[in-house]
């Protein structure tokens, strides 16, 4: 599903964010990206979403080299990738329903599809009773559930999560991880950057550890360290 071949990303000032990374992630895998701040986790995720382009190396998504995609094709790539932010990035003036519907509306989905898919995904994330609430009326965990619903409403093949529990307490984080696990069981590949030792150690999924841009560990059913 995802394949990196000798990928190197260098930012201005010769800052190497990722160095010669080669990795293969199968369809339906759940992968944790771990490492200290600045180790290259976010860059790894941004490269998969084509927010960044590597200086050298090739990234394949479902067999396609995404580096060679024309810029007009990038939006179509992203429709197959869900993205979850640490700070949720919900639109304050839109309700829960509108925030999720927005993701379908802006890719041109018909209204009848939106009316069908949005309630279904809100039920999956357990927010059926809060469709008319605004983000400020929700707890952190609920806001992250809305963010997950928005990322998953278009049923993407891949879900990228950049520290989705970073702003949540441990108990709420467990609920979010259960939800991501449930999504993963539908066959969606999940790649999650995290600092949360407890979550990684509890879930025992594949762990890729980065240290100053270098992959130093790739362990099936791994732990944080």
């Amino acid at each position, binding site marked *: 599903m995802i394949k990196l071949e000798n990928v190197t990303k260098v930012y201005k000032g010769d800052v190497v964010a990722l160095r010669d990374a080669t990795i293969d992630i199968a369809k339906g895998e759940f992968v944790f990206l771990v490492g200290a701040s600045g180790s290259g986790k976010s860059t790894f995720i941004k490269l998969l*979403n084509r927010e960044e382009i590597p200086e050298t190396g090739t990234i394949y998504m479902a067999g396609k080299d995404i580096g060679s995609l024309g810029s007009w094709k990038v939006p179509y790539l992203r429709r197959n990738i869900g993205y979850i932010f640490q700070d949720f990035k919900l639109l304050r003036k839109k309700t829960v329903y509108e925030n999720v519907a927005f993701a379908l509306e*802006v890719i041109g989905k018909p209204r009848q599809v939106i009316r069908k898919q949005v309630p279904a995904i809100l039920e999956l994330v357990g927010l059926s009773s809060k469709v008319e609430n605004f983000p400020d009326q929700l707890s952190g965990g609920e806001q992250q559930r809305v963010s997950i619903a928005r990322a998953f409403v278009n049923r993407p093949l891949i879900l990228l999560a950049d520290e989705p529990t970073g702003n949540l307490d441990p108990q709420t984080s467990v609920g979010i991880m259960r939800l991501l696990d449930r999504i993963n069981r539908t066959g969606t590949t999940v790649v999650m950057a995290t600092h949360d030792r407890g979550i990684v150690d509890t879930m025992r999924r594949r762990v890729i550890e980065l240290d100053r841009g270098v992959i130093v560990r790739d362990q099936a059913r791994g732990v944080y360290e």
Partner: protein
Amino acid sequence: MAISPIYAVRETAQNLWRNVLLTAATVITIGVSLWLFGGFFLFNYAVGNATARWEGGIEFVVWMNPDASPAQDAAIRTTLDESPEIRDWTYVDQDQAYEEFKVLFADTPELIAAVPAEKLPPSYRVVPTDPNADVVRELSNQFKGRPGVRSVVSADETIRAIQTQADKIGIVFFTGSVILLGAATLLILTNIVSAIKSRSEEIEIMKVVGATNWFIRIPFMIEGLTQAVMGALGAWGGLWALDRWVIRGFNDTNSLALLDGFQVTSSEFMQTSLMVLGISVLVSVIGSAVAVTRYLDA
């Protein structure tokens, strides 16, 4: 991917309302600049129509009676040919006069229908060698009261002054309108950039979930176009008022006989209106294209 009309209208309206004061300033600036621009053309048309018979150095016109005899006509021609102070002259017969009359009064077909060609006087349009006002006056006096001559009208200094002043006013109108159009373009750009910045989080989400560049751009471009067209409509109203109450006023009062024919025809008004609309679209395309390519696609 097709953009839903409801989505486009809703987003555009929100963008316009979010910066309503800046929107109002932009629309007013576009309206005033296009009004000046259109006004320049309307005045040019009106002055051109009023002074058409004085083009090409013609300094006086000898109007003949429609029933002047061939001998009376020949006597006038002989004087014109033999005078060393006359460089050139043109004879405008009744049919040609009728054609001019039809152009001049195109907006009043009832008048055209009421006046047959044979009622219109033929004329000699004379170009003297020296356009000095005293020389012209002396020359034109030679034809006054002669058999077959109805009247002699000279393009005195007033007409020339009007042409000169109209040219100067036109340059001021034109320059002012071009400067204001430049300002309007910058205002459209500023307005759209402001809308882009205030919606930066929304735009980020749109990009992440896979909205195409055009889907993101279109509401902003429609926003620019809406402002420009609103300005153009205001300018059109102003031009209508200018034509109705100022330009036609010169004719209606009939106090300035020298400016007989100072008017704008329907087709000239239509041409000016279309030009104003076209320029408003151009201004909006330039302003919004620069805004979305520099601040949205980065």
